[in-house]
């Protein structure tokens, strides 16, 4: 499938920022001129995950408890070429441009709030240069999820060591959930529900397309305010 980037930009030597990146290896099959037939994506298997994400999860919750969503504990991007400042700027710019692509689907106020969170998250002064910057495709997976779930509750945001975006929510009765968005569309789910005042942990891994169903299974969609 062609990208907008392959369209010759006439006269002004300007590549529109709205160019949409294409994933490799996902052909967009069209059966006839009309109507179109798309090959269905293979459904990802939902499976339990180990404890390797627990540290990231706990860091996010810790930050949420303190009501600070700065990057100090969460973001440790690896210094990349050419400079850290430039890498952070590029990550922030890419994320904001991705937000613009879906801005027509976001709830009122979400765009500005996400911009604010990104500015804090990718602040060079709070950045540990040993960690990897926010990955563009990870943020893309996050936006796909948000536009699908349409939660009313806004998440705290962090970034894993590998540059994946982590979104975390906490309910009024201390139920918690943390989602880590991978660049390939997978989402790690880790959470705790309180049943009869007993914490019941849960975890799963789902394709972003199946995330809503996973959240329904864990009884999270209601308190997240998912559409």
């Amino acid at each position: 499938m062609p990208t907008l980037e392959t369209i010759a930009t006439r006269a002004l030597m300007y590549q529109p920022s709205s160019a949409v990146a294409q994933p490799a290896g996902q052909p967009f099959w069209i059966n006839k001129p009309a109507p179109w037939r798309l090959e269905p994506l293979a459904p990802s298997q939902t499976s339990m995950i180990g404890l390797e994400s627990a540290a990231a999860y706990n860091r996010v919750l810790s930050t949420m408890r303190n009501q600070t969503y700065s990057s100090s504990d969460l973001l440790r991007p690896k210094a990349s070429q050419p400079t850290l400042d430039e890498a952070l700027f590029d990550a922030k710019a890419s994320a904001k441009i991705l937000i613009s692509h879906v801005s027509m689907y976001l709830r009122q106020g979400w765009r500005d709030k996400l911009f604010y969170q990104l500015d804090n998250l990718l602040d060079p002064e709070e950045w540990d240069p040993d960690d990897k910057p926010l990955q563009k495709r990870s943020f893309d997976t996050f936006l796909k999820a948000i536009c699908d779930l349409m939660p009313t509750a806004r998440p705290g945001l962090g970034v894993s060591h590998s540059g994946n975006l982590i979104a975390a929510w906490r309910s009024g009765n201390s139920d918690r959930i943390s989602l880590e968005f991978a660049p390939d569309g997978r989402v790690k789910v880790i959470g705790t529900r309180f049943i009869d005042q007993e914490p019941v942990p849960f975890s799963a891994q789902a394709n972003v397309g199946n995330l809503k169903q996973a959240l329904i299974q864990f009884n999270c969609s209601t308190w997240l305010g998912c559409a």
Partner: protein
Amino acid sequence: MSTAPHTQPIYLRPPIIEAIIGINFADAVKESILATADRRFAKHYPVHKENSHVNVVITANAGANALVPSGMQEQRITGHKRMSDSMDEIVVLMPNAILLSHLAPYKGWDHILERMKRDWAMYKRPGTYRPIARVGLRYINRVDIVVTGNLVEHELYLNLYPRVPDELGPIVAYMMQTTFHLEKINAQATITTTPVESPTLGHASFIVDIDVYKTADLPMNDKGLMELLQNMRSEKNRIFEACITQRARQEIFDHANP
């Protein structure tokens, strides 16, 4: 048969992902003058990036059986790209051009035109102004069509798509570009459409990129330039409305007119 409405619809969810105004000049300005102009834009566009391009021209002579390269010339063109903090307002200053871009969410034509007036006044100085060689107005729209099952009935929403023989089998991808003369304003319109990856789940997205531009009989003053942009915008709207169906207006763009 055209399905375009008689009055300009108002959309609650416009599909515009980028709106661009570009002015090209007949001559280039010096780098130092461009740098001075660039600094004037810092107040409204604090984020700065160099915008460089390299043109390579290879000359060749006809040999006995093939062209024989005889020389290569490399030309580096340096300009400036500035962005607002939110990255959704962009200005590009090149030696022979100025370009304003606005990303989604679209704030309306009045906002774009006011920004153009402000930035044009900021750019235009005795050192920078050159006769205009081209005026362009480009709107990049993305039409997101809901996929039900594995079927996308794009012809229910778009009037612009390729027709190919059934014998060719499945289409993996396409890109279609057409250029029209706009008699009313003596300009051209190039429309490019192509499917792109949808940024949202459960949708198939199609770009409808409308580039209206004029290279002859160009305005000589600010009033004429703004009037031309208004007229180009009217033509752009007419083209867009002709490219989409009533169902797209109602189901995708949330048509808000009474």
